[in-house]
């Protein structure tokens, strides 16, 4: 029994990280309506940022958040303003391919600047754990889990109770009407993209104590975040969190009891099944999603 609980804990911790990475994508996907293929590259960039701050200035990964988060917010805003905004009026396909271009560009700029080496930071808490009654919980992973939960609560409160948050939600539901209601849609897009990049950066930085970074690390994150956002439902932050946990647990159990090589395949199959049976996502709101491709 202990063994199953241990696997469950590992899965939940993993799911917390997954949720953290996916929040940003949900914001961008939901508000700006762009299928952002460069999402994993945002995570990658933040990870490199954390690594270099650690390497060059001896800055602890958790402290480096102070620098990395604002920097990545700004990066997201710049990306949206100068690269994505000009193509905003074209079709969804064109927007998507712009992000593919950004992804290719970022990946290879990283290769040119920092070479293909995998880099990891080494902190005193990297492998520290809490142990009780035979169960093991990794502390940095627990921190990431806590950060995911906290981010989602904060984001929920922000969306629910502030004016800007309400405007963002209005855009998620129907951006044409939102515009008619006097919401400056483009400016909110900037904010959404910035916030999206910020949350990706949070995920990337909090992963650094137990993970390594290299130029092509982003790809799997992008795919994973899409799976989670769609499962959780567009615009639903709580849904993203639960879907993240769900995928993490599935991955842990499938990996342990079926085969580590097939664990990704299993969650992709579940993703396909959910898409077919309940395309608005397991926890999605189901409103306003028609225009971006749900029947």
């Amino acid at each position, binding site marked *: 029994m202990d063994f199953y609980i241990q696997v469950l804990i590992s899965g939940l911790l993993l799911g917390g990280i997954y949720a953290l990475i996916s929040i940003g994508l949900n914001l961008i996907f939901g508000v700006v309506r762009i299928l952002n293929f460069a999402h994993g590259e945002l995570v990658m960039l933040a990870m490199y940022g954390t690594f270099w701050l650690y390497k060059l200035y001896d800055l602890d990964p958790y402290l480096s958040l102070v620098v990395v988060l604002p920097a990545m917010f700004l990066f997201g805003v710049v990306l949206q303003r100068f690269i994505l905004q000009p193509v905003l009026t074209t079709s969804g396909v*064109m927007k998507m391919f712009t992000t593919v271009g950004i992804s290719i*560009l970022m990946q290879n700029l990283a290769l040119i600047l920092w070479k*293909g080496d995998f880099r990891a930071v080494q902190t005193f808490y990297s492998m520290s754990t809490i142990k009780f009654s035979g169960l093991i919980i990794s502390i940095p992973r627990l921190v990431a889990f806590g950060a995911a939960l906290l981010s989602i609560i904060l984001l929920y409160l922000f969306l629910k109770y502030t004016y800007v948050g309400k405007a963002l939600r209005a855009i998620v539901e129907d951006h044409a009407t939102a515009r008619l209601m006097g919401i400056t849609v483009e400016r909110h897009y900037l904010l959404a993209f910035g916030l999206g990049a910020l949350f990706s950066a949070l995920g990337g930085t909090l992963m650094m104590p137990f993970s390594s970074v290299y*130029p092509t690390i982003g790809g799997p994150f992008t795919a994973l975040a*899409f799976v989670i956002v769609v499962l959780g439902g567009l615009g639903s932050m709580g849904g993203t969190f639960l879907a993240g946990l769900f995928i993490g647990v599935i991955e842990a159990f499938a990996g342990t009891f079926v085969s580590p090589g*097939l664990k990704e395949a299993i969650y*992709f199959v579940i993703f396909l099944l959910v898409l077919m049976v309940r395309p608005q996502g397991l926890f999605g709101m189901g409103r306003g999603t028609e225009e971006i491709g749900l029947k």
Partner: protein
Amino acid sequence: MKKYTLWIAGGLGALLLLLVPLYFKSTFVLHIYTLTFFYIGLTAAWNIMAYGGNLSLGHASFFAIGAYVGALLYVKLGISPWIGLTGAVAASFVGGMILSMPLIRLRGPFFTLATIAFTEVLRLIAIDWRDLTHGSAGLNIPFDLGWLNLTFKSGAPFYYIALALAVGSVWLSRWVRYSALGYHLRAAASDDQAAEALGVDFNLVQITALLISATLTAVLGLFYAFYSYVLEPATLFSFELFSLQPALNAIIGGMGTVWGPVIGAVFMTPLGEFLRFYLGTIQQGLNYVVYGIILIMTVRFFPGGILSLLTPLGVRFKRWIGDTGDNQ
């Protein structure tokens, strides 16, 4: 009389292409041509779905299905790839049917995501099922010369095969576009409900397009497998090479048109090779940086693709040769 001028121009072009292997002894040049033809075929096949407004980023799955079925039948059972073609078509048909389930319910980005997931699942199975596919270690096509085995010493036979495949794919995609199916597809792409109100079975139309596109891609995959000697999941299921690239070609050439994919593939394939060996060896990764910039720029400045730039030229050309045909 005026129509003839176009036909003569086309015929001359075709004749020139047929003569290329006689003129260029370098198999490198032939290889670039062959690769370009494969991509013309792939892009045209991909584009059939795009008529209906559906964007797949999972065509690598059909490509790999065709490649693996053909190669496995040949390597394990000794069945000639020409007969194996039927197996490849059948398998990709089944694959297409599976993917048509999400197609019925999903559109736009969500369908695109489904195609990606579908490919990932197949890729991981191909890696894991080692008794069948040899996993990542790869499957080799033995070097037994002969037309029946699709194995040749010179580059010319495959040049002609790939040329024929490219012409066939473009012809098929053109036929689809101007058939009733094509009109229904385009109607469906522009406005679902209106098309449905006219009595078009929307799902049937989209599924038919998917199946044609999938089987055509599988046929190309089979020939590509025999052209490339080694089969391994990392290459055949490659997102960049066979899912993304056809889509890129089509977008850069002009998506949803007949000739856009051809122009896109003719432009992009040599460009990719060119960038790799002139820039990639100067500084690792530089070629992809340029590639990424070209992509972003094209979408921004020529969203209609290269074809939209050429169309005014084409009109002028037609006026010049006195053709005022109404097929524009």
